[in-house]
């Protein structure tokens, strides 16, 4: 976490150097850049367990008889909490650097947790799928990034409509549907995935 947050902040700092320091342009692309950084760098947070957990620890968890669904839920909640902290810190950096309009900020109380839960579900599922494969750590970003597109679209489009005065709830509904579908897939496949460890 102490590496991912500065890493994300540097990415936000690099964007103006690449596209130019026109404040209007930065305000226009700022929200999109924020969620792209959250998506790309948040993956690192959500797969952290793959890097820190040893095969012996995984075996111990399996031998303790913990329900795989409870294990999946616990991992998602832990990753979502970390991702939410990451989103808030990076969001503050984005507002400061790009001068983002923060009117209607209360909607972010819905958008950010939904994005965090969705990404955490995707990261947990992908880490379980690819975790102990030969190319596991390299594979996870390839698996997560394309599947996170509906979350990215939902988050950026919702925030964009806040700027227009009202909120288009259909984008929020898309995010909720994605979060629910991922939860269902995660719960239904928790047991077969645990068997492959």
């Amino acid at each position, binding site marked *: 976490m102490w590496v991912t947050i500065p890493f994300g902040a540097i990415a936000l700092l690099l964007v103006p150097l690449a596209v130019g320091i026109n404040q209007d342009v930065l305000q226009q692309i700022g929200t999109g850049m924020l969620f792209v950084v959250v998506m790309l760098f948040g993956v690192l947070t959500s797969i952290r367990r793959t890097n820190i957990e040893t095969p012996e620890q995984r075996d111990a968890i399996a031998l303790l008889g913990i329900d795989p669904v409870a294990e999946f839920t616990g991992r998602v909640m832990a990753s979502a909490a970390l991702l939410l902290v990451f989103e808030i810190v990076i969001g503050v950096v984005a507002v400061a650097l790009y001068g983002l309009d923060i009117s209607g900020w209360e909607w972010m109380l819905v958008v950010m947790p939904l994005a965090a839960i969705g990404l955490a579900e995707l990261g947990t599922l992908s880490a379980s799928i690819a975790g102990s494969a030969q*190319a596991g750590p390299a594979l996870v970003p390839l698996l997560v990034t394309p599947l996170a597109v509906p979350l990215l679209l939902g988050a950026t489009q919702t925030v964009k409509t806040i700027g227009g005065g009202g909120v288009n709830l259909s984008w929020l509904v898309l995010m909720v549907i994605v979060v629910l579908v991922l939860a269902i897939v995660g719960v239904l*496949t928790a047991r077969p995935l645990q068997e492959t460890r």
Partner: protein
Amino acid sequence: MKSTRRSAWLDIAAIVVVLGALVFAMLSPKVESQGDSARMLFVHVPTIWLAYLAFAVTFAASITYLATRSLRWDLIAGSSAEIGVVFTTIAIIGGMIWGKATWNVYWTWDARLTLTAIMLFVYIGYLALRRSIPEPEARARRSSVLGILGLVQLIPVHFSVTWWRTLHQTNTFRPRDIQMDGPILAALLVSVAAFTVVYARLLRYRYELAQLHLAQYEAAAATEGPVAGDAVSAPTIGTSGA
């Protein structure tokens, strides 16, 4: 012997259907606004339809694998995904060539185009995952989950032309609102049928190849696997300096 002969006849039938589709495509009337470039329709639409079909088969076979734990369903899922990736690539490249002739650009940030490219990466990831796990059971369980998740991406791709105002035309096949001349529609349907037959043959051959790989892996595992007690070496007696 009998099945080999039947397979050869099916191959010949597939070639005849493809040649028939080619003749239909060549004889179909020219579209005034687009000229001959409109004939790309007879490749572009069937290839993207087959990409959908192939990924839907992967989805269904993945669910069936998890329900039955029979490896043949995993082999079907993997084989179909591989063919789907090939057809999606052809559809994107064909669409780009058509786009250059119609819109004067190879690529535009259109919702359908962009989401189709993203869908391609989902299944490239699926194939990469399969290649990274040599053990068949583990590969089947892990990739079946991704095979199910992949369908989540297929839905926004299909409905993107309805959800967003896009440069890409709306879905070609709308049973209640067909805006296509009879001969062009007939040629398109023959082309879709021909490509579907080709898909079925490719799937059959890829599945057989996957079965051979599986048999080869199992044979190698049976002969080269570790034997209990391998790690224990016999003590050496009487060689110390004592």
